């Protein structure tokens, strides 16, 4: 356990004039790598001691499935006729469409809720109600209404993504800073110009947080959405693999969902820093 007690990056820095941020960052990266290695070790250990690949598949077995599902072998293309990347791509496409619809709807609803007070009174309980429901709960309803193809899935993801954006937008729009609203009005801005040029840009940082939450909701709902007629789709793949006790494929699917989720959140964070340089300055 000597590795754990020695912070390797910190002591390795020879230049005293370097900013304190660099060794800190390196230390963080080192810690994360270390955690990964430890987790891997634990997983390998657990797989070897249980000796039951249906319960805990070994890392090697999951790796093997990654190869299998990404190639055509013995005339079988990937898993259930689609490569892993295709399953993932189709799910991501659903997430994208659902998020875009949900975010757009949430944005419009949130602005209206924030600006028109009677509308807020009417819609707030409804939005909070929908937000409290687990997406799977209203999925059944969408199946009855829209059948089992794409439509109910996209509805599910949109409805799951809408409330976080609506709530964040409404709150931020209401909290427009009086000083800047007055400044715009003093320059001759009308009501909607104030909304466009002050209220909305001021709300943007919080809206973006809402968007990240929304994409997260869509992400966590996609597996639910793909439990029915979900192949191709990463959720459908996991669901089928579970039915046939292919635990290694299930774990592979989880990794694919989780890692792509991390990637998308990182992309959103980068976009946020680019698009909202005034964050924390208003």
């Amino acid at each position, binding site marked *: 356990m000597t590795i754990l007690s020695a912070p390797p990056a910190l002591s390795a820095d020879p230049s005293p004039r370097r900013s304190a941020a660099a060794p800190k960052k390196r230390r963080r990266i080192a810690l994360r790598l270390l955690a990964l290695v430890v987790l891997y070790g634990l997983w390998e250990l657990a797989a070897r001691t249980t000796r039951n690949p249906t319960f805990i598949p070994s890392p090697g077995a999951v790796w093997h499935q990654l190869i299998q599902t990404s190639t055509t072998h013995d005339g079988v293309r990937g898993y259930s006729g689609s490569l892993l990347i295709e399953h993932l791509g189709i799910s991501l496409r659903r997430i994208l469409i659902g998020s875009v619809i949900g975010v757009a709807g949430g944005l419009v609803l949130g602005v209206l809720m924030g600006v028109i007070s009677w509308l807020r009174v009417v819609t707030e309980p409804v939005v909070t109600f929908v937000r409290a429901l687990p997406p799977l709960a209203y999925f059944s309803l969408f199946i009855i209404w829209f059948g089992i193809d794409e439509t109910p899935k996209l509805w599910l993801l949109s409805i799951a993504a809408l409330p976080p954006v609506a709530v964040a937008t409404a709150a931020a729009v209401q909290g427009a800073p009086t000083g800047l609203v007055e400044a715009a009005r003093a320059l001759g801005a009308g009501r909607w110009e104030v909304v466009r040029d*002050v209220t909305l*840009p*001021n709300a943007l940082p919080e809206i973006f947080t809402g968007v990240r939450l929304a994409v997260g909701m869509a992400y966590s709902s996609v597996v639910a959405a793909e439990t029915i007629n979900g192949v191709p789709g990463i959720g459908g793949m996991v669901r089928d693999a579970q039915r046939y006790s292919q635990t290694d494929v299930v774990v592979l699917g989880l990794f694919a969902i989780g890692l792509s989720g991390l990637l998308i959140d990182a992309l959103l964070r980068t976009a946020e820093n680019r698009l909202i340089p005034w964050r924390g300055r208003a």
Partner: protein
Amino acid sequence: MSSADAIKLADVEHRYGDVTAVGPVDLTVPSGEFLVLVGASGCGKSTLLRLIAGFEEPTFGTVHTSGSPPVPGRGAGLVFQQPRLFPWRSVGGNIALALKYAGQSASTADVELLLERVGLHDVARRRTWQISGGQQQRVAIARALAVDNPLLLLDEPFAALDALTRERLQEDLRTVSATRTCVFVTHSVDEAVFLGSRVVVLTPRPGRVALDLPIDLPRTGITPDELRGLPEFAALRAEVGAAVRSRTEVTA
């Protein structure tokens, strides 16, 4: 009411809850006048300006600008006590917005010109927090001056500036104010006499008119130094200074 009156306050009183901030005040400002308001901190100068701008409704009495109740953004340029720049717009973008609302062209050249008028160069593309506090205030002034309003309201606009810039801007303000009615708030007696064609000293809260003094100094064909060197300038400055001091001591 004469149509020449740019501002008319009749028996105006303003309260924030139980606190009477201003009044009662009767004040008529003819068109073209440069009125300077002086008074202790908290005596209601900003409140008076906000009443004239239309951001506050008087609790009692009436406020009229050009014969009707004031509406924010109509016919008056306003510089707040704080810069109040929009952080989501660049420095130049803040100016461009003022031009846009007025339906005027907002080209880069137009914006540069307005910024140069307040002594700012090469800042149009910066973010608002990347310039100093004094520079921010100058952007706010440029923003308020972007559109030719008949009325200009300025709340301690030069408080955050160094002496040199302040004197330059005072000079510029005298030029642009020639064709407008101005109400200018300051703590500086020297600035009041230098800029004003009329100085009103307010009492401590609630602010009332303690002294209403016309400033009859030559305004054209004279340099700032010559103006400050006039014996009349010194006499007026002494008079306003005495009024401000006696008024501040009453509360102390």
